[in-house]
Structures are given as structure tokens and as C-alpha cells.
């Protein structure tokens, strides 16, 4: 029974069969979208305890203390 039907389709509409075949093949080629975590862990540097601007001001003040005149360094 199936053989009769199949033969009928193959003989009558080869174009449709070709299309069908192609679609099935293409369907198998769905692109894979992977959402994976990066290999290296994301590190956040928490050593920043002082605001950058303040650091610059402190640096300037320290430059004075560190100079030879202070007698402390």
C-alpha cells in the first residue's frame, strides 16, 4: 500500500520530493546558539578604597612631607 503511494509520488512529482528532501536536510543544519560562561572567572578589583581625586591631593601633600626639608624621610 505504502509502496504504491510512494511510487505514485515519485513518478508524478519529483520536484516536490526534491524540495522536501532539501528542506529536511537544511532543517538539520540549524545554527547552534551557545550561551556559555567565559573560561576565566570575572574578577572585580575591590582594592580601590580611595577616590581618585582624593588620592591625587593626598599624593601632593605627601610629596611635601617626603621632601628633604621635613626631616621625616
Amino acid at each position, binding site marked *: 500500500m505504502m509502496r504504491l503511494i510512494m511510487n505514485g509520488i515519485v513518478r508524478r512529482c519529483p520536484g516536490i520530493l526534491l524540495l522536501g528532501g532539501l528542506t529536511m536536510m537544511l532543517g538539520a543544519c540549524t545554527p547552534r546558539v551557545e550561551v556559555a560562561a567565559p573560561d576565566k572567572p570575572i574578577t572585580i578589583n575591590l582594592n580601590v578604597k*580611595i577616590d581618585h581625586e582624593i588620592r591625587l591631593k593626598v599624593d601632593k601633600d605627601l610629596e611635601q612631607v617626603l621632601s628633604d626639608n621635613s626631616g621625616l624621610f
Partner: protein
Amino acid sequence: MAMKRVGLVVLAVIGCLIIIGPALALSLDEAKAKGLIGERANGYLGAVSPSQTEAQALVDDVNQKRRQAYEEIAKRNRTNVHAVEALAGEKAIQNTKPGNFIEGPGGWVKK
């Protein structure tokens, strides 16, 4: 009469010592050059050898003055004194002359 002269001589000697006394004390540069003291990462000085009492006295004296300076700077810039100390330590070690001691992770090392 002899006693008076002896007394005068003693006074003169003492006087001389008082005048040149400070010159005999250990200077900061000298102590560093001699490897007696070194800079620490926390912004303060340290005595390289615990047995050196004169160096330790110098260290204590200077550290006290430094602490005052750091507190002043911290207050002025509205920041934590420890942040100032750490930054000072960084700069002090940077400025240390090669051959002088600095405190490393394992102890005193010559820069």
C-alpha cells in the same frame, strides 16, 4: 684652688658635650645608609635589627612625627589615615635609595 680648676674643666667638658651632643646622635640618612633602619609598606620606619636601641629610638621618634603628619593630611583631605599611610609607604619605598633596606613580604630586603 686646685678644686676650682678641676671643677671648671669638668664644666667645660660637659659644656662641650652638650654642644656637640646632637651631632653625635644618629641622623636619618646615616641610619638608612648604615642599614640600621628601613622603610615599611605601612608608611613608617622600622629598625632592621631589634637590638639596635639607638636606631629604635630614632625610629620611634620619626614615626610619631610621621603619624601626626599623616593624620593632618587625612583630615585635610577627608579620608582615612590608613589610606594616607599606605600611599606614603608606597612613595617612601619608591624613593628609597638602592642598597637601603625596605620591608618586603618576607622581611627586610635591600632595594
